[in-house]
């Protein structure tokens, strides 16, 4: 199991994390180590075993369909690092 710099850059892009060259180097090594370790799962034959996503058997939990009040807009906007005119403010999304 060996991860290349290109793969680290690809997964950093997917993760929306800007990495320095130094970080790319050590994350490449550490992820290679961890992924080599988890390869041990391949020792097990899991054909026919159902994947388990949750430890409970709950499925599709619904609540009553009634209105509840939400947080006041101003209170939520105050948490934002940048807002204007009642909106969250972000850099340009469309060219």
């Amino acid at each position, binding site marked *: 199991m060996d991860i290349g710099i290109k793969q680290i850059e690809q997964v950093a892009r997917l993760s*929306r994390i800007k990495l320095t060259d130094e970080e790319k180097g050590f994350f490449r090594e550490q992820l290679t180590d961890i*992924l080599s370790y988890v390869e041990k*799962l391949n020792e097990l034959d899991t054909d026919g075993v*159902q994947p388990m996503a*949750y430890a409970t058997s709950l499925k599709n939990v619904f*609540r009553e369909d009634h209105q509840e009040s939400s947080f006041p807009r101003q209170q939520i906007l105050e948490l934002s690092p940048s807002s204007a005119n009642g909106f969250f403010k972000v*850099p340009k999304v469309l060219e």
Partner: protein
Amino acid sequence: MILRELSANSIKEKIIKREITAQEVVEDLFKWIGLKESLIKAYISLDKEGALLKAKEIDEKLNNGGRVGLLAGIPVAIKDNICTWGMKTTCASKILENFTPPYDAFVVKRIKEEDAIIIGKTNLDEFAMGSSNENSAFHVTRNPWNTDCIPGGSGGGSAAAVTADMAFMALGSDTGGSVRQPSSFCGNVGCKPTYGRVSRYGLVAFASSLDQIGSITKDVSDAALLLQVVSGHDCHDSTSANVEVPDYIAGINSVNNNLRIGVPKEFFGEGLNPEIESAVKNALGIYKKNGAELIDLSLPHCGYALATYYIIATAEASSNLARYDGVRYGHRSQLSEDNIIDMYSRVRAEGFGSEVKRRVLLGNYVLSAGFYDAYYIKASKVRNLIKSDFEDAFSKVDCIISPTCPSPAFKIGEKITDPLEMYLSDIYTIPANLVGIPGISIPCGFTTTGLPIGMQLMGKHFEEEKILRIAKLFENETDFHLKKPGLK
């Protein structure tokens, strides 16, 4: 008698009997915190003013003959990844350094309703990712038993606060052992309930299929008390279990008849510190002397639990932590941004520490096209095999006993450069999270160097009462839980 050294149940009794006021308890505690916190660094934030206000309210209620709650006057510490209305909740991350939640987590609401006094928010590994507290963006908490050592993680702040008598009880969260492992390293009782037993509403999500809120306390009776308050169904958490909550407080003193204790050989193998092995074997001897039957058993897939965990937990974390984008709350980069993708990437580069980045990268890697089946689905299948191991075991025994950790608290800096080595300290606690069963760590001895040793009891889903009772039996026979580190 030193007030701060009393158990939560005892201090509550004194307050209710008016032998002492809640305000005196809070004043006394903050005086001690003022003396020792600079050494231990258990807290990220403290709220003396709020605590005194609440104490005054309780004292007045009692003076007027009013009814008080189950946690009346008990000073409680809360791990800083559990939302507290009007009180900063940072997750020990720069990305949430200035985040003040507009609401209380379910557990916080419950303890407030029962008249607990919240005194502060405790340190953790950033976003609860870590086993030593060294991944906190702010500072490293020290183990009160030996301040050169880590207190464990991720709930090291909560565990150190309780051990150093800087809180009477604490709330934590346990995704792979973050309540039990630090409790073991600091000599506390740490209980992770069944998945779904306690609402996760307001707990900042790390790995949603594994996360569970738990208690860190001075003894088993205190654990029963805190769990009694925080357990139960909550419509704001769709995975919260609609299962009746038994009376834990009364239940722990029931008699244990025909007790069958499982001893899994996989938890006593290679890598286990011999002093820990001998302390746990000794403890098993005490159970046997008290009429329990010890049954050797095997959980053959537990050797794969750590690998399974690091795929599932990181996969879930990479999705959960996608919400930190610098738009709605949290850190925003001061650098100018050309477009929104650059902004996200810079916010996350500046706001997340190394361990969080490592896990988000790993999670996105195992979920990415071409790898999803090989890693995530494979791990989810092995998770099912591990669950079957436990189902088989619990058809023969009432509870399973193991060491909580393979080694005692290690030195600060000792494992920080090797993530895999660090991950191994959670090897015995992770299976309970994968399977969703309750687990409790209780003190069962000390190493020759004076560090606490913890023993883990695991039970069937929703059988917290039974494992608390079995833990209480041991506590009645021993005094490890009463030992104090020399912080005089």
